[in-house]
């Protein structure tokens, strides 16, 4: 997704060099007036991290948009709000900025709510009304504050699709539109008639993905009910059942519907109710066609993954009809909640500084999506391989020796990097804390590190008696403030990703 920082657009406008972002002059002023009192502009100062140097904190600013809801709240997307330290909000094109606070962020859904304490801010603002259904035809407008004026752009509906959330692997119904608007994707407000149809979630050229109001309402309701809290997710992979011989080979007589489950539990969030080789015939009463589509009563043919969020939430049970061992049977699929932290290699981390441990100049880090992303296109193949699918049954996560800060202590290992750790002093390593613990029990005067057998190096030995001096020396020489940032073990960890109150 290409999402140029919106400040570029502001700059250009301010210097008057380019009119591309200006509102359409001829546009119906009624629409603008109606929403002027409900749209706000957000300026979020936040911490961001360099996973290649995890002790460094950078400062970033994100400019986004929001819409006023009943109950003096502002709704926006969760994209790029992680690590926020200061949120400023502006209304009605005024230059005055008020302080705002996130009160709820759901990174799975890609949605967040803010509050503003200063009552003066709310004066003159009115809650917008969120549409109950996803529009399938007609004209939409995309609105945002630009240089004190409300900019409005027409948008044309391309299609409805079931796609991944911008901030997670959870899939739900989205609207794809085309529009001339520039540098969008930052929760610009999409309206139809008197209602908010959605918020923009991403933009790629002229094509934008919209998080529809109907879906947002469902997410908000779930958060208010404070049930399991999250959106559901089908934790299995599948293939189409289009080849009749395949279904017949599994003993099925008719081959007009059904998809085949190929792997289960890759994200490690599901009860293993389904098995590889099961043919799914129905989910929640809907027939699943051989290409994995069902007929939605409101929106027509949609991908079956929509059924995980359509009317269900994590924790609920979805009835499924499957074909297994030569017969049709009914099963109850407990819809799992998405959870980054149960994954072997978590896709994302939010609102927390990266974990690391430096010992004798060796830098250890958990293998995570953001670490891989920090390498860009040059991410090490074996790390990608483990992220992609390598089954490692005996541990919940992986730790990488990501690099070495040269010191006499680690002489000869200067080039070691990007290797997945197997054991330290004979103990299997899944977390940084495991390393810390293993260092408490050296083999004689030595720490013996073993890497996974497919890694470039198998064994590394360090001097256990002098390591702490070396660590101190390295921290001093390379100006690293702390030797570690460890979090509590995952299982004790309050899920920070959904429903978190941000301090």
């Amino acid at each position: 997704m290409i999402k140029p920082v919106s400040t570029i657009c502001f700059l250009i406008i301010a210097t008057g060099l380019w009119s591309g972002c200006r509102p359409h002059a001829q546009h119906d002023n009624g629409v603008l007036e109606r929403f002027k009192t409900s749209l706000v502009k957000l300026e979020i100062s936040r911490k961001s991290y360099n996973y290649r140097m995890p002790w460094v904190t950078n400062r970033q600013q994100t400019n986004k948009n929001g819409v006023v809801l009943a109950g003096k709240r502002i709704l926006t997307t969760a994209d790029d709000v992680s690590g926020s330290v200061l949120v400023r909000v502006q209304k009605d094109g005024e230059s005055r900025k008020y302080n705002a606070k996130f009160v709820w962020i759901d990174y799975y859904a890609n949605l967040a709510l803010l509050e503003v304490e200063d009552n003066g801010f709310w004066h003159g603002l009115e809650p917008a009304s969120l549409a109950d259904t996803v529009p399938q035809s007609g004209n939409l407008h995309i609105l945002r504050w630009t240089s004190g004026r409300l900019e409005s752009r027409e948008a044309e509906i391309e299609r409805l699709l079931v796609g991944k959330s911008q901030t997670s692997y959870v899939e739900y119904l989205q609207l794809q539109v085309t529009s001339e608007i520039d540098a969008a994707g930052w929760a610009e407000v999409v309206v139809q008639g008197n209602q908010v149809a959605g918020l923009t979630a991403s933009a790629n050229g002229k094509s934008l993905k919209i998080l529809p109001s109907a879906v947002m309402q469902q997410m908000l309701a779930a958060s208010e009910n404070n049930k399991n809290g999250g959106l559901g997710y089908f934790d299995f992979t599948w293939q189409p059942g289009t080849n009749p011989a395949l279904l017949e080979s599994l003993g099925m007589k008719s081959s007009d519907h059904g998809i085949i489950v190929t792997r289960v539990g890759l994200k490690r969030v599901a009860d293993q109710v389904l098995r590889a080789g099961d043919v799914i015939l129905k989910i929640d009463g809907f027939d699943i066609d051989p290409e994995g589509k069902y007929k939605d009563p409101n929106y027509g043919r949609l991908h079956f993954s929509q059924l995980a969020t359509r009317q269900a939430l994590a924790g609920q049970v979805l009835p499924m009809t499957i074909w297994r061992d030569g017969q049709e049977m009914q099963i109850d699929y407990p819809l799992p909640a998405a959870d980054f932290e149960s994954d072997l290699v978590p896709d994302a981390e939010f609102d927390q500084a990266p974990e690391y441990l430096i010992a004798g100049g060796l830098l250890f880090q958990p293998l995570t999506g953001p670490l891989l992303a920090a390498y860009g296109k040059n991410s090490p193949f074996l790390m990608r391989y483990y992220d992609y699918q390598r089954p490692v049954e005996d541990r919940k996560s992986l730790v990488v020796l990501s690099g070495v800060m040269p010191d006499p202590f680690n002489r000869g290992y200067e080039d070691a990097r990007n290797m997945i750790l197997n054991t330290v002093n004979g103990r299997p390593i899944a977390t940084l804390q495991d390393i810390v613990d293993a260092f408490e029990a050296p083999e004689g005067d030595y720490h013996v590190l073993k890497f996974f057998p497919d890694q470039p190096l198998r064994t590394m030995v360090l001097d256990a008696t002098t390591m702490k001096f070396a660590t101190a020396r390295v921290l001093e020489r390379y100006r690293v403030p702390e030797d570690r940032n460890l979090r509590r073990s995952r299982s004790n960890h309050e899920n920070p990703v959904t429903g978190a109150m941000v301090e």
Partner: protein
Amino acid sequence: MTFLVVAAWALISATGFGQGRLAQQPERSVVQIITFSQKPNWIEPWRFSGVAKGTGTGFLIAGGRIMTNAHVVSWAKQILIQRYQDPKPYQAEIEYVGHDCDLAVLKVSDPAFYVGMESLAFGELPEVRSTVVTYGYPAGGDQISYTRGVVSRIEMQGYVHISNRSFLSVQTDAAINPGNSGGPVIQDGKVVGVSFQGNKALENTGFFIPPNIIRHFLKDIEDGQYHGFPDVGVALAPLVNPAMRSYLEVPDAQIGARIDRILYPFEKTHEVLQENDVLMKVNEYEVGSDALIQYRGNRVHAGVAFDQAQHGEVVDLLIWRDGKEVELSIPVYVNRVDAIEGNQYDKEPPYFIVGGLVFTELSRNYLGSAGGNPDTDTLYELMFTRYVGGDTMRKRPVVLATILSHEINADFNIRHRSILDEVNGKRIDSMQDLVEAVESHEGEFHQFTFIQGRRVEALNREAANRATNEVLQTYRVPSDRRIEK
């Protein structure tokens, strides 16, 4: 990528001349080799490319043999040789070819070819900073060309023809260009190398194959068969870290490199050696803590010491294990397990067609033809499983090369380049396994499981048999298979 460098030595050193069997006019023994070659198509292995013409250089050596590079004559259907300033082309045949060391020897049946030609003798590894001259027929003209340069350095280099082997190689600043390949590099009237490759990323660098590699090749073929360079199958790591040295109780001198791991299969090596053995000596060569040895004045990788052994010969090792020295002997064998990881030549790829699904062996050649970037599973299968061994490692993984469209496979959901895991419940380690699993099956359906995404597909067995015949006719495929026995 591989282009060959012909280095001609201008013999200036007065002392070197006229002694022993020195060629007075080496150019008379240097020939141009013109090949017409045809490569198979790895995706549809019954098809072949158009005929391509190529040229290289060769030179006469003892025994009436023309020595050249393997890459000059790979896939050749016809080889013609043009003598120095002689208009008549002579037809030649390959006698032996070593794709690992990029050397080949040819024979010409017409006795007239040898008239007036003197075979060139081999010298020793030239010294760094000494001058050499390349002889050859590089692109840019038709006549023989000479270039002179100094020996810049001598060390282990990747041999790009096979791509996954490294041997000793000599770098020179003599110009080496396409067409030079296979030409002699001469010093003091003797051949001290065979020009074979360049590196486009570097300036004024050409590489030639040194005499020890050439002699190894010639000795290998003495028994009438080329085996190749044996491989001991260990990964050496420098032993520099003081804690690691003291952990292994190695005396604190700059001697000894650590065996970090033993690759698979290498059964004999697994019997004799252990991880964390410290390699102190290979035959008479002392191994430094940097995993290098001193070889004729050059510091080169310890592998060079192993490369002196022939297939099946024994190498003597001095190992440091459990705080003391141990003398061991280890037989070394040619390793063909990783052949799929390198370029393969002169062997038409195997294939097997069932119901329009075309299966072949996973190989670097296949992936090169298929284009694009291979997926993660495929790369892992090709490059990393031999580090892990056991069940993870398949001897010869089988890949779905392509699908010949037919109604029987029209609804398949498998992409080409997918690797077979099982067929009809049997694990597939080779093309033979595949044929066996398909032909011995008596059920109503063939079921194929692939590694990628654990996807499954099925064919009705009888319908597949009929479809195979139809597909062969439609696409003019001469046979449903080419399988090595």
